[in-house]
């Protein structure tokens, strides 16, 4: 994680925002859009650092609404203010909306064929692998400077993934715990 408190946001145009979010919206087969966004926004283009992206994502999880849409509101706003926010959300949603309705109306029967079903199932499985790899990558970045976040990562993973506790209460409790621990450990800032 960058320790540069006055880190500046790169100069990004609304067109660049539209292209990135449109691409993620149209190519994110099998779901896991936050992982796609992480790849593009953090890993490849460095628009935001891991800490900022992931903390915004935590907030987006706690708020109502689609997580990735909430995250897009944040990222768009950070890059280009209100217009950036609107562009990000519209570019993320409108293209796949058109595609999904067109496909459903034209190929409804074809989509229910066994081979197509297996094809989509395989894509979704690989998308899970990609999401997990993004989680590992983010985890490595998060524990790079301090070790205690690892305990929190594991606790959240076990609570939600293994024990299947409800997400929002877990995120709230873990978020508060994270704030307290970061406050104690806080020599980083």
């Amino acid at each position: 994680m960058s320790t540069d408190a006055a880190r500046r946001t790169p100069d990004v145009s609304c067109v660049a925002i539209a292209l990135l979010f449109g691409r993620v919206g149209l190519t994110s087969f099998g779901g896991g859009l936050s992982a796609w966004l992480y790849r593009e926004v953090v890993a490849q283009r460095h628009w935001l650092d891991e800490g900022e992206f992931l903390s915004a994502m935590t907030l987006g999880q706690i708020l109502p609404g689609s997580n990735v849409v909430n995250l897009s509101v944040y990222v768009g706003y950070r890059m280009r203010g209100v217009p950036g926010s609107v562009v990000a959300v519209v570019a993320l949603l409108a293209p796949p909306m058109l595609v999904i309705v067109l496909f459903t109306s034209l190929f409804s029967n074809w989509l229910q064929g066994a081979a197509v079903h297996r094809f989509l199932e395989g894509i979704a499985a690989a998308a899970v692998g990609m999401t997990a790899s993004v989680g590992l990558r983010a985890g490595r970045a998060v524990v790079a400077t301090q070790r205690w976040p690892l305990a929190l990562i594991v606790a959240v993973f076990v609570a939600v993934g293994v024990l299947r506790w409800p997400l929002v209460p877990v995120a709230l409790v873990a978020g508060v715990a994270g704030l307290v621990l970061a406050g104690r450990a806080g020599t980083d800032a």
Partner: protein
Amino acid sequence: MRDNVYLQLIAVFVPLSLLSIGGGQTIVAAIEHQAVIVHGWLTQREFVDLFAISRSAPGPGSLMATLVGWKAAGWPGAAVASLALFVPSSLLAFVATLLWRRHDRHPWHRRAQIGLAPVATGLILASSLTVLRAASSTWPVWVLALSALAVFVSRPKVSPLFVLFTAGLLNVLVGKIG
């Protein structure tokens, strides 16, 4: 006004927008109840099919709402349902973003980021396990997921679409053999 399908769509999806805490999957049962039983926009069977499509198609799973609106009232219905589901929660997220950014120069803001980042990381990892454990996960699905994980970890620059489509084709082949 009870007969106007657009108002009905708004009345169904606006409250769900603000109730979908923790993501779109939490309101699927409520959408199903409203769309199938209360309003009869589509049959149970159609709902299950559309749900499967919205899961595997690109875009967030909540595009389910777009498809329900489309079934109820064509393209205008799709637009109305989508706006009703995404606008209220996005406005709220926008207000939260403004509040969160307001004090971004304070030292505590940086520390708060450090405190919240591990939560999202744990949730990303948990979500992959949740998807795998859900529903109809057979052994080829697990193998494909773990293989994809190995590929993405060892080759971070690989094209995701290439890996995903390869996995799709492999799963079709497994189906032909098995």
